């Protein structure tokens, strides 16, 4: 019985955070986030060399062959650094989908590039969390038609993993004729979302083959939700650290604001929310690989809970900062916005809980 990180996982985390501190200080994050693609190829190359890009890709394909828990820890560290990297799509959702449901040729054709960081895959799961507004992706005369919203990590994606329904996911190269990628700008400039519009695209590369795989969508969505929960955890963790550090140093009324009971209690309430939530994220990631019968439910719980915990913490942290937290210069808003996007990605809290109720037969 051991519910904790291994020495290797801690090393990985330490190495990654060290690398990020060196290569992605906040100033650099802001520059990249302000650029058109929202990425720096050198950063992604460096992370691939570090073995981060292919953490979930199997050894034979040049990856690390690790588990979702390892990847979730990495995701958390990226969020902690507000890193503008396509980790969610290219290093978590796409490899999980390919490993679990890809045909042998699909794995061979995509995984090595993902591990090497030379291929990026954006992920469009909008059809699995309810069709919103006027988006309406469908097959029409054997061709993809309509559009799907909120594809993630679209900035420099070479291809997209697109969900059509719960059983059918398809890989579509970005440069295929008939696909239009329209950037969608969100509050969080460290990640790039897009609308994908299809006009006569012939779907060639169905995940697992043309017949699809029953339930593949739900599994892939679960991995995505765990990853977003880890992202929200990282954002909240950073906001809390910054708030505590600020409270220790900022003086008002002749004393550090952290010596005021009101500020102390705000910090205590944040940590009382954060620490148990951390264990939930770990377990959700662990369950994805080791307890498949619980995995979908726990992923939903982790996503919904972390969405609320993280947005609550970034708000409180901003209050601890006072006016400085409200300024652009104060930087804290980078994580406020990261948590804000995480909250909505792949289903808001109420919607995800409604799904979780169904999974248990409670609705």
């Amino acid at each position, binding site marked *: 019985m051991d519910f904790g990180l291994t020495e290797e996982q801690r090393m990985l985390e330490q190495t990654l955070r060290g690398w990020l501190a060196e290569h992605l200080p906040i100033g650099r994050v802001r520059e990249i986030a302000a650029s058109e693609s929202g990425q720096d190829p050198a950063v992604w190359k460096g992370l691939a060399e570090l073995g981060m890009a292919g953490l979930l890709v199997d050894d034979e394909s040049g990856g690390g062959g690790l588990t979702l828990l390892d990847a979730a820890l990495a995701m958390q560290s990226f969020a902690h650094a507000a890193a503008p990297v396509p980790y969610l799509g290219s290093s978590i959702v796409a490899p999980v989908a390919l490993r679990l449901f890809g045909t042998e040729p699909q794995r061979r054709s995509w995984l090595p590039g993902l591990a090497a960081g030379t291929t990026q895959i954006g992920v469009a799961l*909008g059809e699995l969390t*309810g*069709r*919103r*507004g006027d988006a309406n992706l469908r097959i029409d005369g054997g061709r993809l038609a309509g559009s799907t*919203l*909120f594809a993630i990590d679209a900035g420099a994606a070479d291809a997209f993993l697109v969900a059509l329904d719960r059983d059918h996911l398809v890989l579509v190269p970005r440069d295929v004729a008939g696909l239009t990628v*329209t*950037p*969608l*700008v*969100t*509050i*969080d400039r460290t990640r790039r*979302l897009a*609308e994908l519009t299809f006009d006569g695209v012939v779907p060639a590369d169905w995940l697992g083959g043309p017949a699809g795989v029953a339930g593949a969508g739900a599994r892939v969505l679960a991995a995505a939700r765990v990853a977003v929960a880890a992202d929200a955890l990282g954002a909240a963790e950073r906001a809390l650290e910054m708030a505590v550090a600020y409270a220790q140093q*900022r003086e*008002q*009324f*002749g*004393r550090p*604001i952290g010596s*005021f009971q*009101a*500020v102390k209690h705000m910090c205590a309430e944040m940590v009382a929310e954060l620490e148990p939530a951390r264990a939930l994220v770990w377990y959700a990631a662990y369950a994805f690989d080791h307890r498949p019968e619980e995995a979908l439910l726990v992923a939903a719980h982790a996503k919904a809970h972390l969405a609320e915990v993280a947005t609550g913490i970034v*708000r409180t942290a*901003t*209050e601890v900062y*006072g*006016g*400085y*937290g*409200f*300024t*652009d*210069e*104060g930087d*804290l*808003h980078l994580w*406020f*916005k990261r948590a*804000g*996007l995480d*909250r*909505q*990605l792949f*289903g*808001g*809290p*109420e*919607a995800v*809980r*409604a799904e979780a109720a169904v999974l248990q037969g409670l609705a």
Partner: protein
Amino acid sequence: MDLSFGPEYEAFRDELRAFLERHRERAPGGGQMLAGGTRDPAALSWQALLIEHGYAARTIPKQYGGYGATPDPLIRVILDEEFARAGVSAGLGGQGPDMLVPTLLEHGSEEQKLRWIPPTIRGEVVWCQGYSEPNAGSDLANVQTRATEDGSDFVINGQKIWTTTAHAADMMFGLIRTEPGASKHAGLSYVLIPMDAPGIEVRPLVTMTGHAEFNEVFFTDVRVPQSAVVGRRGEGWKIANTTLGHERSSLAATGQLEAAMARLTERMQAETVDGRRAVDDPALRDRLLRLQARLLAMKYHALRLLTCRLRGEPTGEPGSPEGSAVLVTKLAGCELSHQIAALGIDAMGEFGVLYGGSKHERAGGLWQFHYMFSLGLIIGGGTAQIQKNIIAERGLRLPREPRA
């Protein structure tokens, strides 16, 4: 309790409606209350017309260019309601007309009043407020911008922050430390400073919303005559606090909350997931209903406080329900505003995080803007924590913390 206005007020309302009907084409475009700092000729001539009819600068004495009517909160309510209903600008607001003018009326010299009030209410002189400083935060009196005497002048050095409209202002009214030996609160003076004085630099201050709603203002050897002090030297803190008391009716704030709630309900009926409206999600709907109750409570809370003012009953009395009631308005109202925006975002899901002119963005990103800006309001003017201290100590008479 009687929520009708009575015949004389209804007559005023009818007259106002007729006026708005007749003249609405002359009103300038744009928002409800024109931000101070506009120099649009249409706005200035609209303002002049409103003053002439007593719909703006209504209670400013005639000798200072106003309409000269006695203050009447109900008239204020009717003006707010009818201009909002007509969707027409209620004239020039901002820190000149709303804060400086009442302060000068109470504390200014006759010369200061004659010189500054008429062009301010006409919109010809635009003001900004220089109270906050970066190292002060919630400790508002911790002003470090200082003036040293040089002959009959003051020479000012330091920095102000959170200064709205500083980029467009002709003048600043600010708190400056003029009495270095005095205690924290007794060392400040209320000073009028021309924004074109040499040594003043204005830098826009970008906030988390991505916009520069505020500025920083830097002073390097800025020279003003000592006659620019309003009231006596060293009385600036007291004078600034009277000004803070001159805020407009909290009904106007409730009106904004009501408008936001109407937009929210509309949005929740428009936004769909798999064809189902957001308002049909029972968990989101339950949140909407909770906020409706809070809004109703705030609305009638404001009417209760207005009634106290109309009756001339004290509302600031420590330890009384009314004393506490006044103090909680900002705390409860700002939080409600934030919660309305939060539900709007949740109801839209991923559409709710679109911003900055994105395709599919709803209402120009207004929901996110309000979500962030209302958090700024929760923090602004001394944070919710300071508000709670005040409620506890002034409203409930709980003992102050012992001094360290």
